C-alpha cells in the first residue's frame, strides 16, 4: 500500500476494526475540522439531553398540573383556534433551511461558488425567520399570556422556566449559526476558499470543507429542534 486510498479499505464492521487498529487516523478520510465538529456536537448533545431530562423530571414529578402546550401555543386564525400553528410553521421553516443547507454543502464540494453562496444565504434567512418567529412567540407568551420564568397562569411554575430556558438555549444556537452563515456566505462569494485567503483571527487557510462543517452544525440545530418539538410541544 504505497498510496493511501480510502476506497480500498475494508468497510463496515471490518473497516471499524481496521480503522481503530490503524495508525495516524482513527476516522479515515475525515478531516480534522469535521472530526472536531462531530465530537463537539456529541458534547452538545449531552447538554441538550441534560436539559430535556431535567424537563422530563420536572414534568413527571409535579403535583400541580402541567399546562397543556397545545392550548398555550395555539393561535386563533380567522376565529378558529388552531393548536401549535406557529410552532408548526417554525418547524417547517427550520426544516426548509436544513434542506437549503444540505444543498449548499453539495455545491460547496462541487466548488460551485455562486450556488453555494446563494443557498447559504437562503439558509441564513431561514434561520433569521425562525429566530424572528421565536421572538414573536416569546413576546406573545410574556405580554399576552403572562408567562414568566417564575410562574404562569396555567399551572406548574416550571413550565415557563423550562420553556424560556430550552428554547432560549436553542435559539442562541440558531443565532450563532446565522451569524456564521452570513460570514461564510461572504467568504464564499469573495472566493476565499478558492484563493486561499487567510482567516482574520486564525491566519490560517481554509476551504470548502468549512461549509460542510458549518452544515453539520446547522443540521444539528435542526435535529435538536425535532426533539424539543416532540418533548416540549407535543408531549
Amino acid at each position: 500500500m504505497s498510496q493511501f486510498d480510502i476506497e480500498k479499505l475494508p468497510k463496515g464492521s471490518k473497516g471499524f476494526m481496521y480503522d481503530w487498529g490503524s495508525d495516524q487516523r482513527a476516522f479515515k478520510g475525515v478531516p480534522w475540522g469535521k472530526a472536531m465538529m462531530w465530537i463537539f456536537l456529541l458534547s452538545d448533545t449531552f447538554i441538550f439531553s441534560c436539559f430535556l431530562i431535567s424537563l422530563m423530571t420536572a414534568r413527571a414529578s409535579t403535583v400541580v398540573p402541567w399546562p397543556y402546550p397545545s392550548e398555550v401555543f395555539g393561535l386563533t386564525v380567522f376565529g378558529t383556534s388552531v393548536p401549535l400553528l406557529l410552532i408548526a410553521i417554525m418547524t417547517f421553516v427550520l426544516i426548509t433551511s436544513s434542506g437549503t443547507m444540505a444543498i449548499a454543502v453539495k455545491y460547496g464540494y462541487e466548488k460551485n461558488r455562486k450556488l453555494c453562496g446563494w443557498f447559504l444565504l437562503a439558509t441564513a434567512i431561514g434561520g433569521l425567520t425562525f429566530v424572528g418567529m421565536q421572538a414573536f412567540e416569546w413576546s406573545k407568551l410574556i405580554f399576552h399570556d403572562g408567562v414568566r420564568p417564575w410562574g404562569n397562569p396555567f399551572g406548574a411554575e416550571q413550565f415557563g422556566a423550562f420553556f424560556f430556558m430550552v428554547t432560549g438555549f436553542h435559539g442562541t444556537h440558531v443565532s450563532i449559526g446565522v451569524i456564521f452563515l452570513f460570514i461564510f456566505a461572504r467568504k464564499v462569494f469573495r472566493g476565499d476558499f478558492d484563493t486561499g485567503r487567510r482567516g482574520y483571527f486564525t491566519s490560517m487557510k481554509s476551504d470548502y470543507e468549512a461549509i460542510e462543517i458549518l452544515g453539520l452544525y446547522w443540521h444539528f440545530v435542526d435535529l435538536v429542534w425535532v426533539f424539543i418539538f416532540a418533548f416540549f410541544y407535543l408531549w
Partner: protein
Amino acid sequence: MTSDKKQEVHTHKIGVYLWIWGLLFVFSFFSYMVDYINYQGLLRWSLIIFFMFVKAGLIMAIFMHLYWERWAIVNVLLWPMTAIGVFIAIMAAESYYTFFSRMFYFVVGS
C-alpha cells in the same frame, strides 16, 4: 486548517436531498397531526416518539452524511448515547418516586 482533497468527493445528486427534504416535511406534518387530531395516551406517546426518531434519523443519516461515514466514527457518535439512555431511565424512575411521595404525603395525606 488543513484539508485532504482526494477522498472528499462524496457529493450526491441533488435529488437525494430534495427527497429527504420532502420526507421531513411529511413526517413533521404527521407529528403535527397527532396533536391536531388529539390522540391521547399510549398511541400519542408512541407516534410522537416514532416520528421523532424517523426525522432525527433522516437528518443524521442523509443531511449530516452519517450514512456514508465509516463505522469507526458512526459508532463513536452513537454509543455514548447509552449513557444518556441510562440517565433517562434512572431519572424517569426517580421522578415517579418523587411524584408518588409528594402525592402520598402532601396531597392525599397518609
